[in-house]
């Protein structure tokens, strides 16, 4: 594969998000205003929002979630930028990761110098079964959904193939959930920002208060094995293997590299960008890997001139625990069949050799699908700038990566960020 370069350099100089959660009284536009204001506050120097020339909004399905299509001009309007070209990008759960890439390409083309990238999703208006149906529309509705598959079901099938090939046990996946909730507990924007241990103690306290028998779970693993505490969703995936249904919005400010110092003394240079697609899950030769992720990361590494070893921290698409395991292999952090041991061995912990999903990941932070890809960049912005508070990874972070997947891997987009100062 030839290594392609951007036409000119692009820097990330601002990043913000709304709180993630369930907000009955807020629509996606309200959440986007919060994300935009949070992004503005993150820009170090004077920044005039009217300098923004164009807007890319990642949004999977406000059409079905909110009965609202054509969302990009509305988002431009609510932040006072109504006349700017505003474009919605839809690639399922990779929508705002791909919107980020579109923003990068718009600057690299030379056409724009200042670009707003956003992501929105308002999912909690619908009952769970209808959310399941809406998400299922990101699969092949003609040939996959009639089999009875759901999104947890697809990733569960990937897990079944992975367990068969490599000997992984469901407990290995539980370790991923425990790790990501430990990170999310330190993220004030997380939807389920508590450790699984705290969750367990909360359930015990609640039972005691109601005068019910107090569950006898000894530890987190005990809790996670209990069908009543952690019900099966799609074997082998249980509730705590799945990311939640979430409302949320994210916003990023991209500028041409040569003007980045007008916005901050600490720009993050986006030195690698890759995107690839793949066929329906059943059409793939190997069900234990996502080929689009392999291809997208190879493009990004090639463009950046770096290797997986060079990446200090990464936010990867853990819509399900198995997805994090597969992602860390597809990105070249671990050999095929080795990734499932990483959480248990604390390699992917905040103080491990390769911290993964310090934000809490989609698992704990929440997964407002169209907002999640740009949300990963928000965490990388905070970590690389030393703004991550209690969950800050120690030491310098010269290189970091985001990995955002749509569907079962029909889309994958990967970005690599560099801090040079």
């Amino acid at each position, binding site marked *: 594969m030839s290594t392609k370069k951007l036409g000119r350099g692009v820097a990330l100089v601002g990043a913000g998000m709304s709180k993630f959660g369930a907000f009955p009284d807020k629509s996606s536009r309200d959440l986007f205003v919060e994300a935009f204001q949070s992004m503005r506050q993150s820009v170090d120097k004077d920044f005039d929002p009217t300098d923004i020339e164009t807007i890319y909004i990642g949004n999977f399905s406000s059409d079905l979630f909110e009965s609202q299509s054509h969302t990009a001009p509305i988002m431009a309007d609510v932040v006072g930028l109504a006349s700017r070209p505003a474009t919605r990008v839809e690639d399922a759960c990779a929508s705002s990761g791909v919107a980020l890439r579109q923003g990068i390409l718009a600057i690299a083309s030379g056409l724009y110098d200042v670009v707003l990238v956003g992501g929105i999703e308002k999912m909690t208006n619908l009952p*769970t*079964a*209808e959310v*399941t*149906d809406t998400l*299922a529309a990101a699969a092949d509705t*003609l*040939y*996959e*959904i*009639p*089999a*009875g*598959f*759901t999104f*947890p*079901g*697809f990733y*569960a*099938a*990937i*897990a*079944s*193939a992975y367990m*068969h090939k490599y000997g992984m046990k469901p407990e290995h996946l539980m370790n991923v959930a425990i790790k990501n909730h430990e990170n999310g507990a330190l993220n004030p924007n997380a939807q389920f920002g508590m450790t699984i241990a705290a969750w367990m103690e909360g359930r015990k306290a609640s039972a005691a208060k109601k005068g019910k028998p107090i569950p006898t779970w000894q530890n987190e693993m005990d809790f996670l094995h209990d069908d009543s505490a952690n*019900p*099966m*969703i*799609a*074997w*082998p*995936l249980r509730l705590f293997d799945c990311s939640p249904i979430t409302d949320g919005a994210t916003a990023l400010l991209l500028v041409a590299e040569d003007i980045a110092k007008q916005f901050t003394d600490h720009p993050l240079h986006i030195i690698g960008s890759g995107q690839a697609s793949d066929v*329906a*899950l*059943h*059409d*793939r030769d190997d*069900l234990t890997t996502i080929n689009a992720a392999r291809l997208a990361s190879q493009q990004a590494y090639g463009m950046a001139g770096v290797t997986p070893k060079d990446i200090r921290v990464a936010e990867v698409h853990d819509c399900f625990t198995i997805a994090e395991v597969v992602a860390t292999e597809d990105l070249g952090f671990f050999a095929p069949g080795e990734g499932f041991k990483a959480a248990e061995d604390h390699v992917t912990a905040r103080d491990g050799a390769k911290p993964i999903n310090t934000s809490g990941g989609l698992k704990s932070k929440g997964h407002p699908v169209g907002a999640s890809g740009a949300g990963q960049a928000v965490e990388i912005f905070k970590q690389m700038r030393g703004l991550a508070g209690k969950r800050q990874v120690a030491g310098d972070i010269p290189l970091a990566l985001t990995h955002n997947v749509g569907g079962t891997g029909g889309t994958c987009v990967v970005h690599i960020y560099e801090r040079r100062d």
Partner: protein
Amino acid sequence: MAMTAERPFTAASFTQFLNEKKLMGSHCIHCDKDFLPPRAICSQCYSDQLEWVEFSGKAKLAAFTSIYIAPTAMIAAGFGRENPYLAGVVELEEGVKISAQILGLDAKKPDQVKIGTPLKVEFVERGEGETKQTALAFRVE
């Protein structure tokens, strides 16, 4: 009903064949590759010279799950938390793979289901009257 050779390579034709209890895909005359679901353009050699091919229906289980939180269509068919079902990816003896419901195994004991289990195609009718649809399933041999 149109003769096999005249039917376009569409999802509607595929479904029509399922109603006739046939598992049909397309075969590239130029490079000999089989496709299931059927496709109109060969993704290997880009030829548009394809013909319908009927698959034997003999398969083995390649990946699976037991689904407890069901989509609305499966809830309507009586499935859910108390009555989970198996969905899977099967590999046909001709080498192609497809998604299908898996029958004849205990969905409440998924840890006893084995990848590689031999299966045979089954055509399952869901719904009644106008909404009647034939779904693709595979049953343990």
